[in-house]
């Protein structure tokens, strides 16, 4: 989770957005601030996510409000500031890449500038693609080129509008590590639009949840995702806490990796990086089973002693249960019937059971 240290690292607020826009019958009224790092704008399709980044890029003019990135006022209705798109220095990676079809990869990359070209080409592994034409690239390669092109114009903010949505799972897995490297190596704030929680959990420092044109919750990813009350806002499938772990050992013979977190150790399938490396793990709330006694004779490998911190009854048959495992927050979703039968109460010491295979490779980031 993102503790105070993350906030310090992130420093002051880099992005400050407060905009209103009437789009036909749809009203966009969004307000949030975000620090350095990756800010995920999360919401279902049609919630207004793309309109927000378009407004930052200057492709959509808000009716009212202001947009500030770093020290630059990009838009301020009251002060009559509205920088034209080409002067905003926003690197924009579109969902459909939008590479210029009549230019080689090299010319695409250099179109907006050649800032830090060598390093960006190296980070994104673009060396072997430079002479190719966009139509001959795979979807994943196209997005990497688009990312490089956006970065080489030396942007003061990077906007990414569902850059992985058009890709299949293997292509996503191929690109995510590149984006993680960028996040860690390039010192610019990133606004990342997505409706995929595992992407958000892997990449984002901050999350802004948007529904029907309004911000419903926002804050550090670790905090927001472990709030039981956020479950209905995120959707049952997307809910699940993120815990920071360290690679503690590899159980090579059976293909599992041991990770330590503040309250002990868990095992997950796959080889998840080198010893001592920090790994973010998203534990989907619907895959956590609760037990009052330490279970015996079950197949699940991870049984974590936890304390109940919160019980949130939703409208449906489900109950979101906030848990503290060591210093890390977890989230479980059980049925109302189970919660009643087990007589769950805040402060109780119980056990959370996580099947090792419940955490998919897409839920694990570095």
């Amino acid at each position, binding site marked *: 989770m993102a503790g105070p240290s993350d906030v310090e690292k992130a420093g002051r607020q880099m992005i400050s957005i407060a905009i209103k826009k009437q789009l036909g019958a749809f009203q966009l009224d969004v307000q949030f601030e975000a620090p350095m790092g990756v800010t995920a704008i999360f919401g279902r399709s049609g919630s207004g996510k793309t309109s927000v980044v378009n407004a930052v*890029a*200057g*492709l959509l003019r808000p009716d009212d409000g202001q947009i500030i990135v770093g020290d630059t006022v990009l838009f301020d209705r009251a002060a009559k500031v509205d920088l*034209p*798109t*080409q*002067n*905003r*220095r*926003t*690197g*924009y990676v*579109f969902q*459909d890449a*939008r590479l*210029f*079809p*009549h230019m080689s990869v090299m010319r695409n990359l250099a*179109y*907006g*500038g050649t800032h830090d070209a060598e390093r960006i080409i190296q980070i994104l592994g673009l060396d072997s693609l430079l002479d190719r*034409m*966009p*139509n*001959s690239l795979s979807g994943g390669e196209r997005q990497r080129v688009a990312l490089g*092109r*956006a970065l080489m*114009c030396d942007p003061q903010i990077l*906007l990414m509008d569902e850059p992985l949505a058009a890709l299949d799972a293997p292509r996503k897995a191929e690109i995510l590590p590149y984006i993680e490297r960028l996040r860690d190596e390039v010192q610019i704030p990133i606004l990342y639009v997505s409706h995929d929680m595992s992407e958000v959990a892997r990449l984002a420092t901050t999350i802004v949840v948007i529904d029907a044109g309004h911000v419903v919750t926002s804050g550090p990813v670790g905090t927001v995702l472990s709030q039981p009350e956020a479950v209905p806002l995120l959707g049952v499938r997307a809910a699940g806490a993120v815990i920071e772990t360290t690679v503690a050992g590899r159980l090579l013979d059976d293909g599992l990796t041991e990770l330590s977190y503040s309250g002990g150790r868990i095992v997950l399938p796959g080889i998840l990086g080198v010893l001592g490396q920090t790994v973010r793990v998203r534990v989907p709330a619907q895959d956590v089973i609760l037990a009052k006694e330490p279970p015996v004779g079950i197949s699940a490998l991870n049984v974590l002693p936890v304390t109940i911190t919160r019980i949130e009854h939703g409208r449906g048959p489900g109950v979101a249960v906030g848990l503290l495992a060591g210093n890390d927050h977890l989230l479980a979703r059980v049925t109302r019937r189970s919660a009643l039968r087990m007589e769950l109460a805040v402060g109780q010491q119980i056990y959370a059971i996580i099947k090792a295979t419940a955490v998919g490779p897409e839920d694990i980031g570095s």
Partner: protein
Amino acid sequence: MDALGPQEWTAIWLSLRVALVATLASLPVAVWIAYVLARKTFPGRQLLNGLVHLPLVLPPVVTGYLLLVLFGQQGPIGSFLDQTFGISFAFRWTGAALAAGIMAFPLMVRAIRLGFEAVDSGLEDAAATLGASHLRILFTVTLPLVLPGILAGAILGFAKALGEFGATITFVAAIPGQTQTIPTAIYGLLQVPGREPAVLGLVIVSIILAMGALLMSEWLARRMSKRLGGK
């Protein structure tokens, strides 16, 4: 081609010159108008659209007559151009080029406009986020992608200009060596008994020119789509 006398050859060369000048001179204007119609919204847009298409729907004789009234020696525009720049259209090959250009104009605009509408404006947005000015976007992204449309418009315009008859004969008549083009020459020859071989020769030349233009546009279009990655 013995059937073709010097007068016929003159008509062929004149036709080529008239069609070429008409196409090249009106092409930049057609590209501009097509761009404006495809991309801009402004009051009077429909009026401009109608005006551009007028030569397509008016009887060519009417267009020719209007040209005569406006651009003739006594006409307001004609006399102004003559006195100011020394440019005269009346009964000269330049008048034939003007008539051909006006008649070809709507066809060119239509083809080029389709080209502009086919360009994904998302690419222009992307170029803007990369810091490109409107002018740079136009010349590095939009126009290169519209090139196949511009080419199609130019070929179509050239073919139309080559075959223009009604407006030309009304505006500048068919003076051999001055304003007589292939179509007006064929018409003239048909009025004289025994000139069928010359008519046939001109008809064959017409077919060769039209086919040549078509083949060339096909070849250029294929080369261009190959350059765009061969879709």
